[in-house]
């Protein structure tokens, strides 16, 4: 009997009604606005991120809607002018990168799952956690301010001197990205400390679920890289406001300096986005193939390797900007070194499927889709890391398609994770058929959209173009059709989730048969997460649970009934 159990038993019965969970234990606006509960903060992030994912997606559809016709130089296309189009793609990029994908898996799902996976009551710094959320809100409000002031047309990269000279509302959106950066730093810091300090003594580093390795690696990148973004964005604001001359050559500045600082953050930021997704992958693939992860330590170390190498490759964004040959060579070489740990992960995931018992539930469809999508995203990176081919492909649709295949890989894994933990978070099951259709349609639409873009990109179609050579029209039409299919797929997914909230069946504690600690508590979990301290086990030992046909869920096998684990298992 644990101490937590004893203290709970000592409380008056009225404080802990039977069946009460973190969603129902307290009511009213204040109980959410001032909550320190990691689960509620996670739910608030999740809600906000899903809403902004739809807004960002809407801007993407506006971009694609502007492009099926080539247009005539200097002329608008119906109601859409070049200026408006430039604002569409800028807002799509800025919202998706800074508001949605970067906080997506760590802040929304990580917040909910991380303490549960550690068997802990909360994160190390619950107040800082709430503050991170309010920094995120502040960033969102600033971004919306810029929208009200007429929008921004710089592209999400804010390259100088364009961003210092355009007369659109650059400062609010840059200040917003600055605030979102702080949110990200605090979240990373909180999670690193939580993993260090709240890990149960029996849970050694190599007994952690791989998602925690991924979140830990992500935290390192968040803490070390994001301040550099903060510095450069502040400098940009000051340059714009008072013309200090950091970037303006007329005042002795250097416009390319901005690109170095920007990518010093924004390339590692790609790993802030992809590493948590890779962590989620290791959880989904094992649970839905009932297989122990293959090559735990290779996967764990490859997360760390990606985080470390990720800091040393930013210059591959500047191969044609005037960087010296020596620097280009060094950055190209280090870029190839990131390919190795990424490949290791993919091969290990494949080996995890080998002789498994593969169950194509919605989260698994997203996970398998990620192997396809990240396969393409990763392999096309080779064309861009190679100097001679990058010169041709740089700033074309090839690059656009490449980073969408990587970042949307994260988005699809995010949705896989949302479906996977949804029963735990909301205590409701969702409609499996609707979930699968949403997953399939959005991924098929995605592939049509961006495979067409790879093709026109290698044929020489530059990015951020409102008018284009009519030669490229068929590719643009295909891409736009794909985008609408994808939009419809995501709409189904949203309907599936909302439908579940109102009509979903009650979820069992462990519907998928996971053995990480969050599945040892009720769905949804009680306010203090666990009634008794859960036992720490191998996170991928599926002999710990057995299927219960009555509940269509899994039960943990009581210790006394369990057969001894076969020798040589580890």
């Amino acid at each position, binding site marked *: 009997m644990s101490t937590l159990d004893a203290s709970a038993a000592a409380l008056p019965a009225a404080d802990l009604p039977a069946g009460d969970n973190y969603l129902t234990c307290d009511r009213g606006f204040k109980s959410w606005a001032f909550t320190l509960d990691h689960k509620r903060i996670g739910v608030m992030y999740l809600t906000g991120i899903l809403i902004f994912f739809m807004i960002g997606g809407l801007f993407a559809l506006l971009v694609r809607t502007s492009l099926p016709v080539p247009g005539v130089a200097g002329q608008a296309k119906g109601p859409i002018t070049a200026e408006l189009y430039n604002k569409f793609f800028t807002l799509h990029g800025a919202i998706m990168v800074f508001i949605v994908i970067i906080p997506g898996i760590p802040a929304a799902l990580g917040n909910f799952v991380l303490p549960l996976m550690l068997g802990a009551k909360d994160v190390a710094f619950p107040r800082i956690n709430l503050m991170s959320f309010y920094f995120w809100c502040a960033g969102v409000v600033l971004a919306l301010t810029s929208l009200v002031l007429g929008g921004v*047309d710089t592209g999400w990269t804010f*390259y100088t*001197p*364009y961003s210092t*000279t*355009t*007369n659109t509302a650059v400062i609010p959106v840059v200040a917003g990205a600055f605030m979102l950066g702080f949110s990200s730093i605090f979240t990373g810091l909180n999670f690193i400390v939580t993993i260090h300090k709240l890990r149960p003594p029996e849970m050694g580093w190599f007994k952690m679920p791989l998602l925690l390795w991924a979140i830990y690696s992500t935290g390192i990148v968040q803490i070390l890289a994001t301040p550099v973004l903060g510095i450069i964005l502040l400098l940009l604001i000051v340059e714009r406001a008072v013309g200090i001359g950091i970037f303006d*050559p*007329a005042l002795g*500045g250097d*416009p390319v300096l901005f690109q170095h600082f920007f990518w010093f953050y924004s390339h590692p930021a790609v790993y802030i986005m992809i590493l948590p997704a890779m962590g989620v992958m290791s959880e989904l693939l094992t649970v839905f*193939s*009932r297989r*122990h992860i*293959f*090559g*735990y*330590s290779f996967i764990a170390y490859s997360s760390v390797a990606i985080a470390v190498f990720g800091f040393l490759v930013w210059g591959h964004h500047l191969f*044609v*900007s*005037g960087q010296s040959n020596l620097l280009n060579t060094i950055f*190209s070489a280090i870029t*190839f*070194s990131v390919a*190795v740990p990424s*490949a*290791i992960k993919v*091969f290990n995931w*494949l080996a995890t*499927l*080998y*002789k*498994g*018992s*593969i169950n194509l539930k919605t989260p698994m469809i997203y996970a*398998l889709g990620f192997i*396809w999508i990240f396969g393409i995203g990763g*392999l096309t990176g*080779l064309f861009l*890391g*190679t*100097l*001679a*081919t990058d*010169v*041709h492909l740089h*700033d074309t649709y090839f690059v656009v398609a490449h980073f969408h295949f990587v970042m949307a890989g994260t988005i699809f894994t995010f949705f896989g994770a949302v479906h996977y933990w949804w029963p735990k978070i909301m205590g409701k099951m969702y409609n499996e058929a609707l979930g699968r259709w949403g997953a399939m349609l959005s991924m098929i639409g995605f592939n049509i959209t961006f495979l067409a873009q790879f093709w026109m990109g*290698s*044929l*020489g179609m*530059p990015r951020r*173009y*409102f008018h*284009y050579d009519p030669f490229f029209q068929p590719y643009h039409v295909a891409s736009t059709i794909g985008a609408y299919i994808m939009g419809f797929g995501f709409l189904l997914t949203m309907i599936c989730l909302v439908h579940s909230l109102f009509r979903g069946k009650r979820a069992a504690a462990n519907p998928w*048969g996971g053995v990480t600690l969050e599945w040892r508590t009720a769905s949804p979990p009680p306010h203090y997460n666990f009634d008794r301290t859960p036992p720490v086990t191998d996170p991928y030992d*599926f*002999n710990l649970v057995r299927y*219960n046909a009555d509940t269509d869920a*899994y039960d943990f096998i009581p210790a006394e009934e369990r057969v001894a684990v076969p020798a040589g*298992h580890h």
Partner: protein
Amino acid sequence: MNLTLLAQSDRTIFMPEPASTIAGTVDGIFYFIFYVSLFFFVLIVGLMFFFIVRYRQRTPGEGPKTQITHNTPLEILWSVLPTFLLVAMFWLGFVGFLDMRTVPKDAYEIRVDAKKWTWEFIYPNGIGHPELHVPVDRPVRLVMYSQDVIHSCYIPAFRVKRDVVPGRYSELWFTANKVGEYRLVCAEYCGEGHSDMFAKVVVHPAGTFEDWLATADPLSALSDEQYVEFMADPQAFIDKYKDDPEIGENVQRLKVPALLGKALYEKKGCSQCHTIDGTDLPDKGPTWKGLFGKTETFSDGSSVVVDRDYIAESIREPGKRIVAGRQNIMPKPRVSDRELRQIVEFIKSLQSD
């Protein structure tokens, strides 16, 4: 013979028609990476689908057929083997890139002036032209400069691209090896007219580039005295010299200054901000229609009747006096004195009656 159509047939499925000496190298590396990637993609996805079908769960709760946790030799193998391919890609890309960056000593130099949203190519004889004309089979070096924001000079058919950055010169070089017409585009986002910032590239057959260059600017044939005579009464000058054995051929291509000014209006990018049909663009510059002779009031309260001197001043020093209600956004155009006077004549020709 339709050269463009002929060249189109050389286009491969993923790459545009190659028209420079390095295009073959770049395409070779591209397809090498493509086939390696295709192999691994088919391997990975093929195995994935095979496993999905072969090892699908048949009854709920069914267990796996193995719980193997790792195989270190196998994992080391699949970490190390792809590394050799990666080193090969890096090496090919590196060598190809050095060739792209090492400019031959005898390269023919053309200056490139980029600004929102026009390209101007300035040839060694001083003539500025909106099209890039180059001789076939001869190394050409572009020395590029931007007047405002970052642009990027990209010629897909030549597989070359280089950012054009304000405050520094950047250069790129190529040897076009196929006669024809191609497109040069801006690849670095530069605002509203980004996608309209393209130029025609013409690769001339051996020996004809010099002929084009000599006649690129018909005014180039006129002496200073003849130029003064031409400006004084253009039509009379054209009639008088059109059969002249020395300059007649050029004189026949001469236009009156207002028409020359109209050409400059397009070529120098004036048309990006000034209309000539009376439409006023509030965020940009005033329309030129009816501008000459109009009274303009400045932000400091003073005013002027628009005349030749005022227009010349506005072109030479755009920020000196700002018309009330307008912003100081006009870049300083690069125009010679001759060109400036042609623009002035053009604006005067748009005077209201």
